[in-house]
């Protein structure tokens, strides 16, 4: 959290330029919000790499479901924050994990095989991929039985595997502010910026 806060602080601390041009529209906040949501959908009128985009939707959805819908993850969050919510059934989690893992593998193959992506990619892209994949794989190694809270569990989960899983999660969290995974937060800042600026001009987003 601190790393991410630092990154945002430096970015937002850069000088802002005053814009004296007469705005075409003044609903800048609404425009910024619209952009945040509109950019979640495929762009209109512009062709993009459809399979890659569909795959990105799938593995993002899979990751979100696993991270926030799986019972042990919710208990883990609840233990630290006191905030909990109903979990999704285990079979849904297995499918979501599978989708996320397969999607990430496809994304990696795409990155390695597409000439544009290969050129654009660097250490950050591959390492970020690895630190997202690791908790998924180590988590899959843990789910050999339906989840039960610790006191009721017939046999406890392997402490060694659990430790590896938690360590892989910590690696992800440590890396998050430094690399491209920070787009989890920056996506809102970037779209907000463009949304407000372009709405001011009435330009297409």
């Amino acid at each position, binding site marked *: 959290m601190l790393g991410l806060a630092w990154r945002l602080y430096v970015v937002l601390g850069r000088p802002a330029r005053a*814009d004296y041009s007469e705005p075409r529209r003044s609903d800048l906040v609404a425009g910024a919000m619209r952009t945040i949501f509109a*950019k979640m959908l495929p762009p209109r009128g512009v062709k993009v790499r459809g399979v890659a985009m569909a795959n990105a939707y799938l593995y993002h959805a899979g990751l979100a479901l696993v991270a926030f819908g799986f019972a042990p993850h919710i208990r883990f969050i609840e233990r630290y924050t006191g905030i909990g919510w109903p979990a999704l059934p285990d079979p849904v989690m297995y499918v979501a994990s599978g989708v996320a893992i397969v999607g990430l593998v496809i994304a990696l193959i795409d990155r390695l095989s597409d000439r544009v992506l290969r050129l654009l990619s660097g250490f950050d892209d591959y390492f970020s991929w690895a630190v997202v994949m690791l908790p998924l794989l180590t988590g899959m190694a843990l789910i050999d039985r339906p989840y039960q809270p610790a006191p009721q569990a017939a046999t406890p989960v392997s402490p060694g595997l659990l430790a590896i899983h938690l360590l892989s999660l910590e690696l992800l969290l440590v890396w998050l502010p430094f690399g491209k995974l920070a787009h989890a937060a920056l996506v809102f800042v970037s779209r907000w910026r463009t949304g407000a600026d372009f709405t001011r*001009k009435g330009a297409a987003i």
Partner: protein
Amino acid sequence: MSGPDLDPLDFDAPRFTIRKPAVRYDQQGDASDAERSAAAVRAFVRDMSRTAATYMESCIRCGHCAEACHFYLASGDPAHTPIWKLEPFRQAYRREAGPFRWLYRKLNLAPEPAARELREWQELLYDSCSMCGRCTLACPMGIDIAGLVAQARHGMFAAGLVPHELHAVAERAEREGSPLGATPKVLKERIEWLCDEHAVEIPLDLPRAEVLVTLSSIEIMKYPKSIVATARILKHLGVSWTLRSEGYEATNFGLFSGNADWQRDMSLRVINAALACGARTLLLPECGHAYGAMRWQGANMYGKPLPFRVLHVTEFLADAVRGGRLKLKPLAGSITFHDPCQVSRRGGATQAPREVLAALGAELREMPAAGNANWCCGGGGGVVTLHRADEHRYRAFEIKMKQVEATGAQRLATSCSNCRLTFDDGQAHYKWDHRIESLLELVAEQLPT
């Protein structure tokens, strides 16, 4: 060094620029490579505002921008991916201004962009980017890549690494007031000739006027009928207007070349002319980048809000149509419209030409991906001035030709003289059977008698 004596203008070819240089000088001055690199980085860092920093941090390297770029599609070369064109800028950002700059410097993870790299990137930043902004539509993070390219060009100019032709015309514009030799003397002669030839009144240097009209030097030198059309329409509307010899040139090659001081000078000439005659409206010609330069950047060059409104001529016409002041004779047949990127997609005036076309009563056949998603003609951003970019630009123009042909429309119009120039050049190159027309001139032809 390129200069006016070494770089005569070529008015014989369909595309107006300087004659093809026998020897290219794609760098200016005699600074060492180390000095060029340092100058570029200083300029890059100066431009790293909050917005630029946000964009630099946000790219997820997804490559979607490539598919939206006509220059990438024309070459298939991954180096023409829009975001890759900013790599030296990104390197400088990470090293000098990013949140982990100390780490990048200490471990040399982002080396200072060397002059050798900047020379390599000159082709990417100038020859193969028309700053059309189509890539932003495809970017899931909403990064304004075209805006960043304009900023990166500042660094290139500071390093003395501007392509020969672009530097030559920009320098001429700064020195003479026009990139194509349309000096005040030439303008005066043109006006006298046009007034005689077409029996119109073109007021020059009136002390007071409601509307200050500005022109593109492409119009003055290649499409002077646009000036006649403007005069006829303004007379029909009963508008008090003038041209002013101290500020008539709306194009801004300071912006294209990457020299912010020249950009300011060129903007201030026009702004001061408008102030001098007490204009309430500054009317921009059929020119795309002039719109971006004055409508959205003019006040920032001036340092405060402008005390007059700035309108592209199609906005002015649409205003008159809306107000019931402009009624036109119907135009027979079907027509398709090429949106100038800087007026429509990036300028926000996509609907204005459509209102004018509706007033003309012609059957409008929109191109596939028309309006905001329209394909650029490939000549913007100064690309059309560069001889060495021709082959790539022509291939990119093929996308445009297909888009036009898909409509089956009988006529083709636009509202940007630079687009017209690019179309004329493409038409001559491919011996294409489509001729582009000016929307402004079509309106003038359909004025009621």
